[in-house]
């Protein structure tokens, strides 16, 4: 059989192709590349995840106000639509970039790569990435950040942590927010802490209320800032 015969296939012939390509692994590799870029510029990064309304943006604003004289801070804000969050953190004193994911329910490493290119990383010490409000899909898509922080609030009820073990398993810090409303909501904070520790004994837990300015120092310590 000649080479030509080997290489040519007549119309309608079947060809099997081995691919062995892992799409989530591709995201993880991009996340590692993001980490290298951030490390090379000495930027510490925090991926902030949590449900819609848990208080992610309020906590970021709170930290910016407290830390803006210590660090040069930027925020990448992810949302399905609007630039409300980017504007809120800008008002608090940080540079911000909005990513609108459209129908996407999470940020991924490629989106962060593109957003990071728009920032002058040499002018930044601390980067918050506010993920899309969702406790499920972001767990599958690491972004390359140094810290994964999950925010839950007592207004979401007593089972938010135990019902979302995957994201808690990936969390370095779990914030239990709106604790000023715990009594009204009949939610036990100790129980939420226990749930988080059962799923991920290595995670740090912090109870906060942005409204009542409770727990800020503990949060800063937990984030090692």
């Amino acid at each position, binding site marked *: 059989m000649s080479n030509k015969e080997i*290489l*040519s*296939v007549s*119309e*309608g*012939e*079947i*060809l*099997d*192709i*081995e*691919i*062995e*390509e*892992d*799409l*989530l*692994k591709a995201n993880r590799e991009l996340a590692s590349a993001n980490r290298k870029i951030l490390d090379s510029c000495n930027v510490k990064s925090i991926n902030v995840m949590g449900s819609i309304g848990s208080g992610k943006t309020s906590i970021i604003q709170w930290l910016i106000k407290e830390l803006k004289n210590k660090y040069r801070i930027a925020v990448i804000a992810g949302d399905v639509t609007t630039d409300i969050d980017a504007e809120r953190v800008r008002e608090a004193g940080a540079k911000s970039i909005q990513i609108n994911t459209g129908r996407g329910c999470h940020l991924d490493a490629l989106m962060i790569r593109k957003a990071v290119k728009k920032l002058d990383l040499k002018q930044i010490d601390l980067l918050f990435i506010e993920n899309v409000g969702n406790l*499920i*899909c972001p*767990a*599958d898509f690491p972004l390359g950040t140094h810290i994964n922080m999950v925010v839950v609030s007592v207004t979401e009820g007593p089972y938010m942590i135990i019902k979302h*073990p*995957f994201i808690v*398993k990936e969390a370095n810090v779990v914030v239990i927010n709106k604790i000023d409303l715990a009594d009204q909501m009949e939610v036990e904070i100790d129980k939420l802490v226990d749930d988080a520790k*059962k*799923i*991920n*004994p*290595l995670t740090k837990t912090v109870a906060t209320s942005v409204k009542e300015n409770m727990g800020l120092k503990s949060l800063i310590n937990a984030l090692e800032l």
Partner: protein
Amino acid sequence: MASAILQRILDIAEEKGAISIKEANILIGELTFLDREQLAFALRVLSKETMAEKCKFKISVVKAKIKCSECGYRGKAIYDGPEYHTLNFAVPLNCPNCKGVKIKVTEGKEVLIRKIRLKVNSIGK
């Protein structure tokens, strides 16, 4: 994720000069947030009016495996928690051998396009 899988398959098929895609073998880890039935449905819907329209999407689920950095255990993630965690899949919390918590998932988090079968005019470059 379904769009990303389909797009990758279509790109490869186009590169190889395919006129249609007959079959695609896909592996999904049980620790991903993908459901086999939902993914199959999404791929069927998304592939309409593409060369994958008549493609048979064969989707298999990969069981979770872990590695323990405390005792060196490598193998299945066995969960002994409440029943509701074991109905579908469980988050590996501890090493089944030493009960340590420093475990790393080695399998079960993949979305792998393994193999595709194409109908071709001629082999592409």
